[in-house]
């Protein structure tokens, strides 16, 4: 056991080194960039501007709106993905379902499609397939594309993300459900607990560790969403579905404002950190120890 620490250090070192080089060090350099004005290209053109970049953010109306979009989207996606994912988990772990494993595989499959491709597929569905179906059924009110009005475009983003991610959190919930001891379920059955009270008073409290993980994953993923945003709506119509990540990307790579974009990115980091840490500490407190 004495040599344990040495081995531990040896095996952890590569990962720590990689993490340091590709995450920590660039992050610190990135903080430095927030104080300069630079196009990101011309050598020697960096200009120190102090906190100007941060001050500028507060008068940036579009950034403010995009925070709103991101919060709206994250709220809806968080609830949607977890409710649907949990429902999937309950269905595929129930005894009466024939072909459980096939169902699991099928529900998980969308997660394996890359965000960009998924976005383009669903763009076609919303723009062409659904209106065509509505046309042939004579539903004249539904022949427009969901992607051309702001509120429904946001909803379309959420639906697509649920379709993609629900299968993923389902896997975590299945593990959680299977970890619930049989005697607890047995006792609940003997006591004649109904479906809903079984769910809310027995299963959910025992599922809290899984819920913590799933909420954390969906929260941070939804905040940072970019690929789906780009491919499905491109931020449109009229930037009404533009998320923070897209705003920052465009600031840096389309408008060539490196320093200002980096300042936004740093604020974005703090934003995500505060939300996810708050979420983890709240849900952790609700976890019950068996």
């Amino acid at each position, binding site marked *: 056991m004495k040599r344990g620490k040495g081995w531990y250090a040896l095996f952890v070192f590569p990962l720590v080194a990689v993490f340091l080089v590709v995450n920590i060090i660039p992050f610190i350099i990135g903080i430095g960039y927030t104080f300069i004005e630079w196009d990101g*290209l011309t050598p020697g053109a960096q200009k120190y501007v102090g906190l100007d970049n941060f001050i500028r953010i507060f008068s940036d109306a579009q950034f403010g709106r995009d925070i709103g979009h991101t919060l709206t989207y994250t709220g809806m996606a968080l609830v949607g993905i977890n409710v649907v994912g949990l429902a999937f988990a309950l269905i595929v772990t129930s005894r009466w379902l024939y072909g459980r494993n096939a169902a699991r595989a099928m529900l998980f499959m969308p997660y394996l499609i890359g965000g960009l491709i998924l976005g383009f597929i669903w763009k076609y569905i919303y723009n062409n397939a659904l209106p065509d179906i509505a046309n042939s059924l004579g539903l004249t009110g539904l022949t427009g594309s969901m992607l051309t009005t702001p509120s429904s475009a946001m909803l379309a983003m959420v639906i697509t993300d649920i379709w993609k991610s629900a299968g993923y959190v389902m896997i975590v919930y299945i593990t959680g459900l299977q970890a619930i001891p049989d005697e607890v379920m047995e006792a609940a059955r003997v006591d004649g607990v109904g479906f809903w009270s079984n769910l809310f008073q027995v299963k959910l409290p025992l599922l809290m560790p899984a819920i913590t993980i799933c909420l954390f994953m969906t929260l941070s993923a939804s905040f940072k969403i970019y690929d789906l945003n780009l491919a499905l709506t491109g931020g449109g119509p009229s930037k009404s579905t533009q998320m923070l990540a897209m705003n920052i990307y465009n600031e840096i790579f389309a408008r060539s404002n490196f320093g200002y974009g980096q300042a936004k990115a740093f604020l974005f980091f703090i934003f995500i950190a505060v939300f996810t840490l708050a979420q983890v500490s709240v849900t952790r407190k609700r976890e019950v120890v068996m």
Partner: protein
Amino acid sequence: MKGKKILALALSAVMLMSLIGLAMAETKAEKILIYVGKGEIVDDFKALTDLYKQETGVSVEMVSAAGEDGGALLRNYLTADNSLTIFTTSPGANAKTFDAFIADMSDLPVVQEISKGALDAVTSEDGKLQGIPFTVEGYGFVYNKDLVDPAKITDLASFTTYMEEAKAKGVDGLMLSAENYFLIVHMLALPFAMQDDPEAFTASVVNGEVQLRDVEAFQEWAKFYDVIRKNAVADPLTTSYDQATGAFATGKTGLLHQGNWAFSMFADYDVTFEMGIMPVPILGNDRISASVPGMWVVNPNATAEEQKAAKDFINWMYTSEIGKDYLYSKFQFIPLIDADLEKYGENLDPLSTAVQKFISDDKTVPFATAYFPSGIDVDLVAIAQGFFGDPNMTTDQLLDSITETFAEYN
């Protein structure tokens, strides 16, 4: 023992030869790296570089941005290290951004042969020849000769009549598609290009000195745009480039606002009609937009040998038979060298021929997009989405939003 000696001798000979090889390589670059941002030519370009290697021994390695954001990729290559010897970019605002990475090309022999107009487009304000222009491209209304008579669409009134008649038949007179440049940017560039000095005019809009609603060409442009909105059958916001070009190729619409690059899209269809390009008749305008879409640029931060090799390669492309064959037949570039135009001109597709006709008749305006602040297409398309999404938005509101957007880049 004897065998070993021979082996040792042979080995040392090999080593000596590789040493000599190394020493010789120092005087001449054997490898250069090129970034090609023009997605549609990359496969053929790869084949061209293989042929170049066979002929000269210099290997030209290519990187490209297939399906990625080319601008961001190019930035990464340029700032990460100086290994990129040649890259492609467009003249104007983009070239200005990359100025520190652009060498002067005026010492290339082929420059003497290229037409003056094309060279002007790639010369910076301080007289630096920024690159060797690819070709010229032109855009305007691409029309189906069976469905549209250009002599009958010469002003706003006749355009409106044409569009209304088409709508009455339940078809699109003109189809726009949702991509940034095809939905608004290319169209909007025309009234900018029609000003006496488009560059100074664009700058004054960015400065906030000019309100677009006060300029006649823009008022009329907005009316054209409004007519398109009112008579759209298919929603432009949900129509893709593929769908619009497909509808045109199958005769479902008579007009597209596109350029000669769109011809390659029709190759998949059995097109039975003749087509041409006509001007967008804003204030009776009879010119199309035509200019240099891109250029080969040499990176001055590469070593002197690499730069030499890069310039040799570009010169070879434009002077050798193989190079010309690729440029004009495979890439479908319109030749910028008069002698080549005579020789290869008949290979051109109908749309390129039409563009070439406008150029030789001196009926063109430059691409004003070259003077637009980089990144503004994202904002302009957002305005266009608002305009098409809200039938109550007036043309004045449209022009005011555009004015405000330009001013944001001040």
